[in-house]
């Protein structure tokens, strides 16, 4: 626990008339305080080989992503507790410094700087909000701090990546490679994509389009819906009748609006509905009145226990205090953002492995930790309940198993597991960050 400072402790004395002596006293005290503050701000950049290891967590506790943020926070805290109960990292306690991004890129980037410079975080478990993580990466790189993205925008481990940028989960590139072959074979070859008119949607469209067309499929004109739209009927009405697969990538409320309004227009009776887990994350199909019934979702982690029925998964579910079928928190209405939040849990164990393997002591040893992270192998265990995976050395991307599921009677039912080996074969690295300077 950090010592709390009372607000009254910070209240300045009211000046009641100043003498030369009091002025000098104030000036000297101010100088001493400034020197102390400067040393405090910069000491993290230099050797600090004892005391806790501070890991920053950039998390969406409020705002539009807070239904996910709650789980990222819970996951990170659970991992830190397990690590500390087991003796910490290299015998040092882990201290988690949490910053609420307010689901806002400007606030998130500002608070990342504070996490690194003021809270002296040596590593960052980063945001799941693509806008925030993309705004944060240049700052993490500038401050030479390894940053783990949890969002899906491919740029984080692509065009905007750096030697400091990592991601254990999937991006739009990986999701397209994992889902398109199966969907083309089982759902249809004529596709229409509908998505929100911003980077995440366009990124999905570009990655999917390449693979669909390469496999001989047809992609109709995309429908990019302006952000903030409430009535989707004008956009749904533009979907061509010959469409066999309607691929949607909305988020949160817009996602629920999409499923609701397509259902009322009976589009699901005319074409197959396909999407990625981000569009149904933290939402229980039972709570949206059957609007997602029959929809196929590509997941990063199966929601029910039965489709990855092993001890680590079971223990993780117990740790998260959720039910094993719907992933709903016991005693509340919250649904676990399971396909993404596991990264905030596992990333702490990833860091533990890299720190211990490289003998990291302080920020000056960051190069060793980064080299240990590049190509790190992780085995299915309580530390990695999502499953065995590798953090690919070239593009710092996690190669994981993916799961194609369908909502049936409001339950996620597994249709196919896509093993990481199969995924890796279709997903050659497009960047090699090992060649980038530290």
């Amino acid at each position, binding site marked *: 626990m950090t010592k709390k400072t009372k607000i009254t402790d910070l209240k300045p004395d009211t000046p009641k008339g100043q003498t030369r002596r009091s002025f000098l006293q104030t000036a000297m005290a101010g100088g001493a305080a400034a020197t102390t503050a400067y040393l405090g701000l910069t000491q993290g950049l230099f050797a600090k080989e004892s005391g806790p290891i501070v890991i920053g967590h950039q998390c969406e506790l409020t705002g539009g992503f807070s*239904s996910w943020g709650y789980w990222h926070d819970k996951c990170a805290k659970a991992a830190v507790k397990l690590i500390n109960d087991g003796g910490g990292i290299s015998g040092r306690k882990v201290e988690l410094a949490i910053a609420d991004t307010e689901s806002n890129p400007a606030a998130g980037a500002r608070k990342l700087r504070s996490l690194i410079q003021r809270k002296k975080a040596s590593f960052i478990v980063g945001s799941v909000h693509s806008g925030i993580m993309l705004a944060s990466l240049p700052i993490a790189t500038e401050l030479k701090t390894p940053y783990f993205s949890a969002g899906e925008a491919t740029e984080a481990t692509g065009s905007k990546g750096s030697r400091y940028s990592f991601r254990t989960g999937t991006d739009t590139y990986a999701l397209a490679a994992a889902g398109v072959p199966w969907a083309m074979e089982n759902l249809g070859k004529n596709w229409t994509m509908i998505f929100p008119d911003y980077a995440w949607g366009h990124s999905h469209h570009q990655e999917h389009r390449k693979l669909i067309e390469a496999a001989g499929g047809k992609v109709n004109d995309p429908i990019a819906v302006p952000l903030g739209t409430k009535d989707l009927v004008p956009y749904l009405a533009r979907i061509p009748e010959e469409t066999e697969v309607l691929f949607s990538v909305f988020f949160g409320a817009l996602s629920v609006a999409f499923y609701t309004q397509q259902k009322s*227009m009976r589009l699901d009776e005319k074409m197959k509905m396909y999407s990625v887990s981000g569009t149904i994350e933290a939402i229980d199909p039972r709570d949206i009145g059957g609007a997602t019934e029959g929809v196929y979702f590509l997941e990063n982690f199966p929601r029910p226990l039965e489709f990855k029925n092993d001890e680590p998964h079971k223990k993780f579910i117990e740790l998260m205090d959720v039910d094993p079928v719907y992933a709903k928190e016991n005693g509340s209405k*919250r649904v676990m953002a399971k396909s993404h939040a596991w990264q905030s849990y596992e990333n702490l164990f990833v860091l533990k492995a890299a720190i211990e393997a490289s003998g990291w002591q302080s920020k000056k040893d960051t190069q060793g930790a980064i080299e240990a992270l590049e190509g790190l192998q992780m085995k299915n265990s309580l530390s990695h309940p999502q499953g065995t995976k590798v953090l690919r050395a070239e593009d710092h991307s996690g190669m994981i198993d993916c799961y194609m599921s369908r909502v049936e009677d409001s339950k996620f039912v597994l249709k196919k597991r896509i093993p990481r080996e199969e995924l890796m074969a279709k997903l050659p690295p497009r960047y090699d960050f090992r060649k980038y300077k530290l």
Partner: protein
Amino acid sequence: MELVIALGMNGIVWGLIIALIALGLSIIFGLLDIINIAHGDFFMVGTVLAWFVLDTTGNYWLAFLIVPIIGFAMGVVIEYTVIQPIKNAAALSIVATFGLSIILQEGVRATFGAAPTRLVPPIQSTIQMFGLEYEVYRLFAAAVSIAAILLFFGFLHRTKMGTWMRAVRYDPETATAMGIPARKIYMITFALGFAMAALGGVVAAPITTVDFQAGVDILPFCFMAVIIGGLGNLEGTVAAAVMLAFFEGVMASFADPTIARIGSLCLMSIVLLIRPHGIFAGATR
């Protein structure tokens, strides 16, 4: 051509729902000179309360009665605690209602959770409308909106309270001198604005979603309707809301959706350039 007609009609239906919400914003501005940034959140509170009524009683129709009453009561409390102390200070009203907006959003998030949810429409059938599979509930929602708007204008023009509201709006000093309880009228007007937005929330909840940020996106459209209709011009607000939604619907049938949105913003700019006080400015006050 069928698609153009279908989307034009859908625009009118959606515009009527927006008109109901924007009308509340317009009466609050017209009488109190309050730029109410929290008005979208009054709508959001309506959607959440509708969901709550359905969840606890199992009867959605009850929400049409209960939610506006709760909205009215909340409006009375907010007018007394937030609006009254800053009356006649437009700049302060923006800050105060922005703060109120955050309180309402985060209050709902903390109480009901952050995950969006859905209300299953009480009428689930569809009809063929110019080649479009169209939800019957939307037509019902438009009918409720028309009824509520007509009731409101009936109240405004045919009751003593309505006459007082118009009198205070026209000249508060003279109205007070004539013995009209202006203070009470301010409170009732604000509460009525809240109740109408909340009713809009009940009507729209099965079409859109229920979540703590549901009001954020609806507010700009309401402001556009109020500005194009002429600030404080109630009939103008209704007409502008319907026209805007119709225009955007028709545009969306052949143009890129984003172009359609830009088109409606351009329309607003042109109207403001030609008629800075709104398209129906002549009838204001």
